[in-house]
């Protein structure tokens, strides 16, 4: 078990380094950042001086080496636009994005799994078919358009919820969170719902498929033959079996939710890393782009790693796998 974890960790580290290289090459090597920073009327000498100062005249590999060295010390360069450390910018905005992502994931789970269970247990009923039809609608809807509609309905028409920004925050362990205040919740509601929609539909479909497959298994018949009530058969026997693939998917989708938050943040002007990224792309603020990508990649790799380990914990059949060999 430990060997497995260590091996996976090593792999993760390798992927991280690889990604950092790709990111670096992609962002820095193409295009000429000097054009952005230097006054267009600057003459050759100015340009040359700026280039040398930023180290842009060195060979690519050397630049990458310096970059890597500084990165492992936590220094990812300064934003061209704001002139503060890029990593600082990212980390400042990260809690907002993570809060949004988690809220969306929680919503998707709390709504999606029960609906999927119902649809899987009674696939031919009106409710079951309605849920499935709804789920098709759910992942066909363009996220950004739904966001607009939500604003239309709840902000413009009904005036119930604020259309943008993040609400009041409260510091928990030094990190500002907004869901603990009523105002914060009001601001969080629409973006979280918007972001959750796509994952919700996927979760419904996944849960439904797993439930259907599980309910046809012999162990369900056997459980019923023991005289167990439907509550226990569904709640324990079926649920425990379907939770394994579902948890894995949730874990993997969490990374995707963080990425999709970029769109939601743009629509609702949610002050997270996504908005920062878009602005940086438009302004060619490369250090920030690189910092963002590296932070995200790290988060992803970490999530993947945790999911892998979690999977082996959840499924007792996998646990023995390497250690004890076949029974």
């Amino acid at each position, binding site marked *: 078990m430990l060997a497995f974890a260590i091996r996976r960790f090593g792999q993760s580290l390798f992927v991280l380094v690889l990604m950092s290289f790709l990111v670096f090459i992609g962002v820095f090597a193409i295009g000429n950042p000097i054009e952005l920073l230097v006054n267009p009327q600057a003459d050759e000498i100015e340009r040359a001086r700026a280039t040398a100062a930023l180290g842009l005249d060195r060979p690519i590999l050397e630049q990458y080496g310096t970059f890597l060295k500084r990165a492992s010390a936590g220094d990812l360069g300064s934003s061209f636009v704001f002139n503060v450390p890029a990593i600082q910018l990212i980390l400042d905005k990260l809690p907002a994005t993570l809060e949004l992502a988690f809220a969306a994931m929680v919503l998707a789970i709390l709504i999606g799994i029960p609906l999927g269970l119902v649809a899987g247990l009674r696939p031919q009923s009106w409710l079951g078919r309605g849920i499935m039809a709804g789920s098709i609608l759910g992942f066909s809807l363009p996220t950004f358009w739904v966001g607009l509609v939500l604003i239309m309905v709840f902000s413009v028409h009904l005036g119930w919820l604020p259309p943008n920004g993040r609400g009041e925050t409260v510091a928990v362990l030094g990190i500002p969170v907004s869901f603990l205040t009523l105002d914060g919740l009001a601001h969080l509601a629409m973006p979280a719902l918007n972001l959750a929609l796509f994952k919700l539909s996927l979760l419904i479909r996944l849960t439904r498929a797993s439930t259907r497959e599980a309910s046809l*298994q*012999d*162990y369900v*018949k*056997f*459980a*019923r*033959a*023991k*005289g*167990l*009530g439907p509550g*226990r058969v569904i709640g*324990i*026997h079926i649920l*425990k*079996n379907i939770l*394994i693939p579902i948890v894995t998917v949730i874990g993997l989708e969490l990374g995707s939710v963080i990425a999709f938050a970029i769109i939601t943040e743009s629509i609702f002007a949610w002050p997270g890393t996504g908005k920062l990224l878009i602005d940086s792309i438009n302004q060619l603020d490369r250090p920030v782009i690189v910092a963002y990508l590296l932070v995200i990649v790290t988060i992803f790799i970490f999530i993947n790693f945790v999911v892998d380990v979690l999977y082996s914990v959840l*499924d*007792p*059949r996998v646990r*023995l796998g390497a250690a004890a060999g076949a*029974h």
Partner: protein
Amino acid sequence: MSGEPLLRVEGLRMHFFTKAGVVKAVDDVSLALDRGRVLGLVGESGSGKSMTGYSILGLVDAPGRIVSGRIVLNGVDLATLDAAAWRRLRGNRVAMIFQDPMMTLNPVLRIDTQMVEAVLAHHDVSRESALERCREVLGRVGIASPDERLRAYPHHFSGGMRQRVAIAIALINKPDLIIADEPTTALDVTIQGQILFEMQKLCRESGAGLIWITHDLSVIAGLADEVCVMYAGRIVESGTVDDVLSHPMHPYTRGLLDSIPARNVPGRPLAQIPGMTPALLGLGPACAFRERCSRAIESCAVAPAESRPAPGRALRCFNPAA
């Protein structure tokens, strides 16, 4: 035995209503079983024997449905039961053992969870006393050091061990009737023998009735008191094991007996029943065995009704072997 039999099935009909048509999985099946006796239900796959077992437990799922007939257990007509009453019955007064132990035990739950829940579903006792009961019944099916086994997961066990656990679960609430659906088919021949012997002993000791569903006549020979032979959803012959095996009347039963390799005279080709079992979909009005029967006569164009050629014997045939 005197008095009301433990189980009486009369004219049971269970059909599957599929898009392609109606499949008469169980077609007018009648049987009776007394306490402490073993009934063998013999037939090929698709003969309806498993479905009969499921019907008795009320585990028939859509698109299948019991269409007509009565099942009376301990004097109670099971058709009168509501869902809650069925749950009180299952695993308690009637228990079932399935064929593939790999899949009947839930792979992600521990053994003790799966055994204790069987007890707690029917008795309001503490978890500790339920566990005690589990240890006891595991001992009865021949599993030593039960505590270790209880904390394990199904995939830690071999097939034979898993089936013993399944049997233990069936026995745990001291049921009156046990239905065993080919429980040894998936196992080693040596294990098979052991389990057969133990099941027989357990039933004799507890006085429970046992219905043993199988395709293997030789298993029945050593184990059962009575036998029902099924073909295409109908019981074609039944009686005591001694009677039926020594004087089979239905040509199908004869064919089954003749094709047992142990009965073959060395040097002669193995006897076979020609042809294949018919599709249950679109079965015509004739006797289902007609196409393969060497004794078919004109009357066989209409499926025969059940007759009683001798006390304790039932038969569906117009032209039985004497």
